């Protein structure tokens, strides 16, 4: 008993996370990715709109370098690596690496903001529905209605109503994530409400607001962290899907899904154009999912002792 050092449970959980190799790897990949997209203007060698028609659809570093081409002679200029464009160029001669960084900004920002908005509204709805019996039915039935729409359809409906823009896409995705937050939080609140310490807190004269915001919300936090992490992945896929369908981010602003959509015409000529943003989405989503999964393993049992 005495040798247990005092620690914040959240901090303890984080330390446990770092002990898991897979989770640590994902965490650092995401960290690097986030830093890279934040500092995109510094890192990116070109602007995302900078075109050079002379070097359209060139391969990246894996292509034939100029000296080699000279030595070989008679090489198709399309196969020659354009110096400085490490991931190649697209159909307008724009640098794919730079566009990937700027596109990641949008993808991650939309993922983050829409998750945050969905989380805020969803958690409030969940807390109220779980705690006040008379609000349970009205709130949860609205959530059920939102739930019945297939996610992407709901998002498309909202965008069709309000017009195509990054903000509207963000709004659509956040509305779509509200019910899953509300459901999880409500379930947790229903469970916590019956705990002795909540009763004890009430017997000490705490007001409802205090019980909800301090005692219950804090105990919901592990659940919220886990679903928020998982939800980030879903949101990123959603914005990419919407952009792919032309309902998300509007060109020339790059976005991973939009880049894939633009690349599909040149799929046979320059497949890397489609693979690169695809792999970026994949890595990000997998990392968020694994991280969420591991967080659930870590947060759940340790906080129940």
């Amino acid at each position, binding site marked *: 008993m005495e040798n247990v050092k*005092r620690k914040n449970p959240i901090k303890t959980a984080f330390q446990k996370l770092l002990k898991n190799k897979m989770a640590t790897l994902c965490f650092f990949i995401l960290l690097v990715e986030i830093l890279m997209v934040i500092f995109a203007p510094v890192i990116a060698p070109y602007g995302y709109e900078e075109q050079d028609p002379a070097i359209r659809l060139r391969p990246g570093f894996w292509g034939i370098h100029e000296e080699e081409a000279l030595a070989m002679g008679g090489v198709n200029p399309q196969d020659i690596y354009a110096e400085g464009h490490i991931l190649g160029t697209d159909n307008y001669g724009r640098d794919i690496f730079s566009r990937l960084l700027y596109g990641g900004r949008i993808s991650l920002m939309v993922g983050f903001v829409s998750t945050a908005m969905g989380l805020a509204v969803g958690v409030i709805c969940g807390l109220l529905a779980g705690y006040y019996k008379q609000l349970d039915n009205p709130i949860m039935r609205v959530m059920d209605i939102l739930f019945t729409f297939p996610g992407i359809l709901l998002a498309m409906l909202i965008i069709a109503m309000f017009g195509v823009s990054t903000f509207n896409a963000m709004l659509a995705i956040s509305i779509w994530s509200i019910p899953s937050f509300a459901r999880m939080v409500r379930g947790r609140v229903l469970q916590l409400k019956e705990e*002795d310490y909540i*009763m*004890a807190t*009430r*017997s*000490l004269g*705490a007001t409802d607001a205090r019980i909800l915001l*301090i005692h219950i919300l804090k105990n919901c936090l592990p659940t919220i962290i886990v679903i928020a992490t998982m939800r980030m992945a879903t949101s990123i896929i959603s914005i990419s899907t919407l952009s792919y369908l032309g309902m998300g981010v509007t060109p020339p602003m790059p976005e991973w899904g939009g880049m894939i959509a633009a690349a599909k015409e040149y799929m046979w000529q320059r497949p890397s154009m489609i693979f690169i943003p695809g792999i970026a989405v994949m890595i990000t989503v997998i990392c968020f999912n694994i991280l969420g999964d591991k967080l659930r393993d870590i947060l759940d049992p340790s*906080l129940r002792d």
Partner: protein
Amino acid sequence: MGKVLEVKDLVTTFRIDKKEYEVLRGVSFDLNENETLCMVGESGCGKSVTTLSVMGLLPNNGRIVSGSIKLNGQELTTMSPKELNALRGKQMGMIFQEPMTALNPLLTIGRQMTESLMLHRGMSKKEAMETAKNYLEKVGIANPEERLKQFPFQLSGGLRQRIMIAMVMSVQPSLLIADEPTTALDVTIQKQVLVLLNKLKKDVSTGVLFITHDLSVVAEIADRVIVLYSGRKVEEGTIEQIFAKPQHPYTIGLMNAVPNVDLDEFDIQPIPGTFPNITEDIGGCRFHPRCPYATERCRREVPEMLETEPGHFVYCHKIEEEQSK
């Protein structure tokens, strides 16, 4: 000696499957300052429901139908939830049975102890910390400063229960309700907790309503005892009266059901029959199906209160008839 709590003809019902069932059928008792009143009875007799009625913490399907509860002269049954909430913690505090789950696992002890001090006694954070420290010392916790920074999972059950007691008593309520606070603890810790409760009771001059079904705990701590059976009080008296001269057949049955270590053979006489479900409709005295002396009158009439000696009340037809002879 002022009266802290006056409960009169309290009737509380629970709604189960759209039907109302009486759980408390007119319970009355008083509690004085500086006094420990023990409420004993089997599980389901309404002990906990009495405490929850007083605290105003009945679950959603429970409600007080009639009767009055007065805390320091203020009527609680007609109060708005908000007014009642302001009294909770401040004038009446409660200690729960299960110390392992009665503290919030995510907040430090210090945080939980200072919360109510700041709320009810208007203290600053610093003063509250200081007071919390003092009370932890009072309940015999070594290095309180360290404890205040710890989380509940780092503490043992006995420690947690003492912290609960310190937490409730630090606000200096005039009524302390202890709902089987020692049931989950082992015997040595039990004794410590009981001694502690008695000491703090005198310090703060609190009235303690102590719920238990453990008669050895009653013998240890009580000034007066009331015996509940199926939502009704069957006997009330001082500790000496109840233990030396139990009168109601149920109380006598309870006493006989305690194993006596002095005898070579453990001679436990259980009370025949089983405890009635609250949904069962039993007329007259609720105990009559299990009572060896039950008569036709017991089945029909609810017994009236009878004072057999000063301060000793019993509700039984048999005793009434014996006295009137």
